[in-house]
């Protein structure tokens, strides 16, 4: 017993030492970001100018929206995050769980410059910084005449004019980017997605389609020649074009590609400084820097793009804005139906 007591005393001492050594965040504001080039552009365009202008320090947490939302939900009175910038799905999760502050242009003056159609995505609790269009990335060598409409894409795939990659049910763009889009084009409704699935099944039966579940697979498959075309995000496609594969082309077929907003939200009970940061996120200057770096369309209507990026940016006419709230309400049924009929 004495031995055990000695051990547990040691454990208690060690635990206390660790508790004191725990590194509490000393920054004035804590915000979120995705890693890699996204984070670097985010720091350069928003965080560093904000720190310079206010003299305040900003910490950036890397990770994913599910992680951030749960961290806030577990500590709602003293949230470890003040501003979330993440996916539209994560934004809805945070909104549904009551973790956010409502925002108005009176508190965030630059919101007045944002496209109201895009601001509507926030439901009063935030706004998109940019949005990525989910159109077609293709090999300009293998497909010199890419499809001008989604119907042409489907028919060309069925006929074997090219090999294509589609998002699988486990990829984030499957629901809105494929099912909702095809429902709009081929009829049906969010309660009846059969017309959309019938087209996917036709393509699948032709043997000219593969399904991907991580964003890097289509880039590698296109490079190796395993596929000629993929439904994909515009900014990522152009980044690949510039960095690794100049043979890549991208287009939004008619009637357009679904836009995926990148939402910014102020966390309830977070630092009041968060409102100032939200204002920086809505600014034309910050968004111009970020949108030109990531090649996504900005929500601020006063943003100017550099000549190289301008023609690549999704236009409002070729962008389809869907209700992610409506899709989230029916997505469990969609997943079940997809699994039964498509199975990928």
């Amino acid at each position, binding site marked *: 017993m004495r031995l055990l007591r000695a051990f547990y005393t040691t454990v208690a001492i060690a635990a206390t030492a660790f508790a004191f050594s725990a590194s509490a965040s000393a920054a004035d504001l804590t915000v979120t970001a995705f890693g890699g080039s996204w984070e670097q552009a985010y720091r350069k365009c928003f965080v560093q100018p904000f720190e310079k202008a206010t003299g305040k320090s900003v910490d950036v947490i890397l990770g994913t929206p599910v992680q951030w939302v749960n961290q806030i939900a*577990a500590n709602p009175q003293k949230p470890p995050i003040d501003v979330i910038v993440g996916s539209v799905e994560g934004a809805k999760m945070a909104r549904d769980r009551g973790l956010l502050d409502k925002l108005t242009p009176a508190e965030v003056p630059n919101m007045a410059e944002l496209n109201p159609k895009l601001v509507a995505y926030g439901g009063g609790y935030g706004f998109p910084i940019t949005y990525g269009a989910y159109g077609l990335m293709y090999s300009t060598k293998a497909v010199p005449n890419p499809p001008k409409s989604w119907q042409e894409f489907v028919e060309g795939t069925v006929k074997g004019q090219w090999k294509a990659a589609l998002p699988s049910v486990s990829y984030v763009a499957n629901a809105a980017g494929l099912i909702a889009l095809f429902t709009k084009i081929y009829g049906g409704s969010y309660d009846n997605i059969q017309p959309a699935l019938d087209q996917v099944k036709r393509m699948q039966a032709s043997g000219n389609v593969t399904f991907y579940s991580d964003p890097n697979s289509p880039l590698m498959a296109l490079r190796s020649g395993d596929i000629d075309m993929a439904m994909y995000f515009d900014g990522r496609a152009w980044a690949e074009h510039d960095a690794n594969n100049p043979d890549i082309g991208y287009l939004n077929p008619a009637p357009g590609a679904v836009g995926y907003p990148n939402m910014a939200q102020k966390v309830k009970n977070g630092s009041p400084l968060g409102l100032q940061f939200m204002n920086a996120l809505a600014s034309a200057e910050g968004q111009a820097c970020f949108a030109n770096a990531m090649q996504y369309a900005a929500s601020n209507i006063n943003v100017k793009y550099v000549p190289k990026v301008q023609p690549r940016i999704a236009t409002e006419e070729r962008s389809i804005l869907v209700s992610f709230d409506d899709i989230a309400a029916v997505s469990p049924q969609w997943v079940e139906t997809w699994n039964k009929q498509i199975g990928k």
Partner: protein
Amino acid sequence: MKARLAAALVARHAGNWLLGSFTLLFFVFLVAPIAVVVAVSFTPQAAVSLPYQGFSFRWYARLIEYRPFADSLLTSLYLALNSALVAVLIAVPAALALGRNTSRAATATVAFLLAPIAIPALVIGLSLLYYLSNLGLGVSYTSLLVAHTVISVPYVMRTVLAVYRNVGSDYEEAAAVLSANPWQVFIHVTMPLIAPGIFAGSLFAMLVSLDNLAVSYFFGTANVTTLPVVMLSYLQNQFDPAIAAISTVQMLITIALLLVVERTYGLRALTTQ
């Protein structure tokens, strides 16, 4: 007679050859993906592809340029060491107290301490996030340490239990008969006998901690994020050979760790008793 002997010899050689070939193929099957990762880390190109021309440390320079890689690697190493240490402090006394106890309560307690292995790490991570937050620890290094200790304890417990049960109680009883007090028995008899189990368990615990994503995922802060979480976040937006470079560094650290163990203790001692 001679013919039969020759046939048996040939059959034996053929068997050895087949077994050797199978072992070699299996070894290649296991090592090839790792070799590819190491090879890709030296590509001068911006994309992950093989074969490539030239040789470059470009992606190792990226590890220095992109601070989250280096910072999170240090955090992961520090965390792995600390969680293994705390796991030893918890699991060793528990194993000693429960190892030779055959009561139902002891059996149930052992099963309870080993349970984290059987529970999905994501469930442990999510549950601990809410539980530790309610205790006031919030999202912090302390919470991360507690979470990693929870998943490390079964590995130390399992190995120490196995070794301790095999040792038998004769040596400790002999020491006690010769007037050693419990502390002396532990230090001079029990500890040396169970050391291989502690060593092996700690090593497992460290490797499990270094590699863990599911639990670490919920406790990342701006200053404390582990390497697997940063790698996941990086991969979601960027797929370049920097990932291969940081993976190679991580592998080198593990190999170095094993070499240190081999030089100071001997890996053979971990597997024989």
